[in-house]
Structure formats: structure tokens, C-alpha cells
């Protein structure tokens, strides 16, 4: 177990990811391409939803990753607060922009899907609402990182915000479900009520979910590497001044 923490050493992290990143990046591109091409070109139209069912291959993976990204930031923040490994703080910072974009993709694909399905771009459905709130949490988190100069202070404050924010995000989700009954699908992979989703959709969906996971991983690794370098640059410039 102790050996796992060694990857929290920036140097070790840089060395490992130097080799890992291209592999993950190519895997991400290939798997996502396979998933999306399969989904877009080689799936039948749904008897009720028509061709819009193809949107599921973007919508579900991105919504999933948007939530997972926040969970990953939460874990990384905890590690930073408890063990004070710089890499985890910087990884949390790098994950945030990826998380926002995933959230945005989820929102946009959902909205575009909603137009034909529900006859409206947007509805104050609880799942949609809590997703929008998640978007706001991302924005606040990023804004706080951007507003603070001192890197360690910024890491500490954003980590606490992430913890407190997670609790309130859960509360908000609960509140949203309390507040209105929605139009949105439940959390089972069943597109039409009563009928189980067909493997014709399920298989490409799983592929593109894996692809989005790999995209997230690749972008977070690349972002973390950049943040580590930026951090080192900052430290070096400060040393230069001191000399």
C-alpha cells in the first residue's frame, strides 16, 4: 500500500506518466471513435425515438464522467488535506476543467435530445436541475482556484470547498427530487419504460463509456503534468528573485 503513495512524488509521477500518457491518449481516441462510430452509423433507429436514440452514446457517458470527475476531485482533495501530496491537489485542479466540459456536453446533448422527446429544450426536472447545480459547483471551484495567488493556500481552500460543496451537492440533489417529479429516465438502462434496453444499443454504449473514461484519464494526466510544471516554474521564478 505504501508503495502507492510513491506516485504522489512529482518526479515519480512525471516519469511514470511520461510513458503512460501516450498509451492512454491513443486508447482514448481509438475506443471513443469505435464507440461513437458504431453508435452513430451502425445502430438501428428506435421505434419510438427514431434516430435521436443515437444521442445516448454521447449523453450518458458524459453525464457519468461529469459526476465521476467530481468524485475524483473529492478523493484527491481529501488526500491533499490528509497526506499533503502536491500531486493530488494539482490533479484535482486539472480535473475541474474536464469536469465542466463533460457537464456542458451532458447538458447540451440532453437539451438537444429533450427538444424532440419532451418538446422542450429544458425542463426543471430534478435530475437536470441537480446537474445544473453541479455545473455551478464546478464554476465556483474553478473561480476560487483562479482567484488565489499562493498555490498552497489555493489548494487548501479549494479542497475544503470541494468537501463542503459535495455535502451540499448531495443535499441539493435530494432537494431537487423532493421539489418536482421529473420527465427524465430513471437510473436503469431502460430507454422505453417496460422494455429492457437492447444489446444493439448497450454494446456501443459501454464502448463509448469506456472511451469517455479514457478521455478523462488522459486529459487529467496531461493537465496534472502541466500543473506540476507550472508549479515548479513558479517556485523557480521565486527562487530566482530570492537569489
Amino acid at each position: 500500500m505504501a508503495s502507492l503513495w510513491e506516485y504522489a512524488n512529482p518526479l515519480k509521477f512525471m516519469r511514470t506518466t511520461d510513458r503512460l500518457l501516450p498509451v492512454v491518449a491513443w486508447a482514448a481516441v481509438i475506443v471513443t471513435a469505435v464507440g461513437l462510430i458504431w453508435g452513430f452509423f451502425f445502430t438501428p433507429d428506435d421505434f419510438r425515438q427514431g434516430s435521436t436514440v443515437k444521442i445516448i452514446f454521447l449523453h450518458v457517458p458524459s453525464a457519468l464522467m461529469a459526476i465521476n470527475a467530481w468524485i475524483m476531485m473529492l478523493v484527491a482533495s481529501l488526500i491533499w488535506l490528509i497526506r499533503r501530496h502536491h500531486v493530488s491537489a494539482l490533479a484535482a485542479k486539472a480535473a475541474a476543467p474536464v469536469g465542466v466540459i463533460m457537464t456542458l456536453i451532458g447538458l447540451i446533448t440532453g437539451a438537444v435530445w429533450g427538444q424532440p422527446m419532451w418538446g422542450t429544450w429544458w425542463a426543471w426536472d430534478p435530475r437536470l436541475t441537480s446537474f445544473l447545480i453541479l455545473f455551478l459547483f464546478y464554476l465556483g471551484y474553478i473561480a476560487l482556484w483562479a482567484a488565489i495567488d499562493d498555490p498552497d493556500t489555493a489548494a487548501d481552500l479549494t479542497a475544503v470547498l470541494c468537501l463542503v460543496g459535495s455535502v451540499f451537492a448531495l443535499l441539493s440533489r435530494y432537494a431537487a427530487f423532493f421539489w418536482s417529479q421529473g420527465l427524465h429516465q430513471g437510473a436503469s438502462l431502460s430507454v422505453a419504460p417496460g422494455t429492457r434496453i437492447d444489446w444493439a444499443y448497450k454494446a456501443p454504449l459501454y464502448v463509448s463509456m469506456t472511451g469517455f473514461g479514457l478521455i478523462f484519464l488522459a486529459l487529467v494526466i496531461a493537465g496534472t503534468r502541466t500543473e506540476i510544471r507550472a508549479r515548479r516554474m513558479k517556485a523557480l521564478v521565486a527562487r530566482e528573485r530570492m537569489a
Partner: protein
Amino acid sequence: MTLRVHDLTCARGGLPVLEGVSFTLAPGKALILRGPNGCGKTTLLRTIAGLQPSIAGEIEAPADSIAYAAHADGIKAVLSVTENLQFWAETFGTASVEAAIDRMKLRALATRPAQTLSAGQKRRLGLARLLVTGRPIWALDEPTVSLDTDSVALFAGVVRAHLEQGGMALIATHIDLGLPEAQVLELGTYKARLPEEGAGGFDEAFL
């Protein structure tokens, strides 16, 4: 009841500015911190006051024994001089506001809102706060800024009386305070060297 600082390294903005600072302050003694602008006097005082963590070394002081006074005096503009002092007296659980007002020659200004004081008068009020904290160790950052010569002498008298009662004072200043009995610590000689490069690679660059 002694303040003992041993081999202290303190940092500002993520970089060590002072290194290996050691001294001992016994009851009844004063230590004057000197050094050019930017050498780290404020940083040292804040570290000793417990407002920021030290990077290395030890600070031994009894709990709740240090009264810190910074450039900013924590004066509330809309409260009167007495009300300002009263608040700190109650917070620190002491009750000697009147004595402090007389001691710092603030009697004539006692009912004035602090915002109508001149720069030097405000400073006198800030120093009067020290008297109501009842704490033995004073850590003062340029306490005589804006004071005229009479007030500087008044302040020196106050510090001397505090020392005579077994108090201690740690004062960063650029001017002559008229406290010849105080020891002087030149902070210029403790300038931190750059941490060595390359030894541990990336991780070191963070500190």
C-alpha cells in the same frame, strides 16, 4: 516564562526568507530586530505570534503569552477610543482600560470616534491595546511609525515599565527607540540561502 526561539526557518510566499534564527528572551529583557527592508522582520514576528507555521526550528513560549501588534492596528473607525479599548480588554479578560488611556495620553481623545484621529493618535491607540491585553510578551512590528518625538519617548517609557514588571518585548524597527538597554538582533545575517537544487528533484521545488 521565557521565549526561546531555536534555529527557526520562516517563509513568506512559499519561500524561506530567514534561516537559523535563534535567541532567548528572558523576563525583563527587550530584543530589537533590525534589518533592511524586506529582510523578513514582519515574517518572523508573525511566525512567532503563531499566525503562520514555521518551516523548521522551534518556538517555545507559554501558551497565550504573546501580544502581537502589526502595522494595521485593528482600530474600528466608528467606535470611540474607549470603546475600541474596551473591546480588547473584555476579549483578553482584563479590565484596565482607564489606566491604558491615561498611560498613552489618550484622555482628551477618549470619546472621539477613532476615524477622526490623526495618524499618530491612531498609533497611540493601537499601542494602548497592548496594555489591556495583560500579556507578558509583546511582539511589535514598527510600533513608532507616525509618532512624534514626544510620543516615541512616551512609548519607550511604557515599554520600560512593562519590562520592569517582568514583561518581555520583541520589537522590529528602523529608528532609534531610546531603549539603550535592549539587545539588538541583526536579521540581515540570517538571510535564508536557496535550498539546494537537484537533490530530490521536483518535490523540493515546491518548497
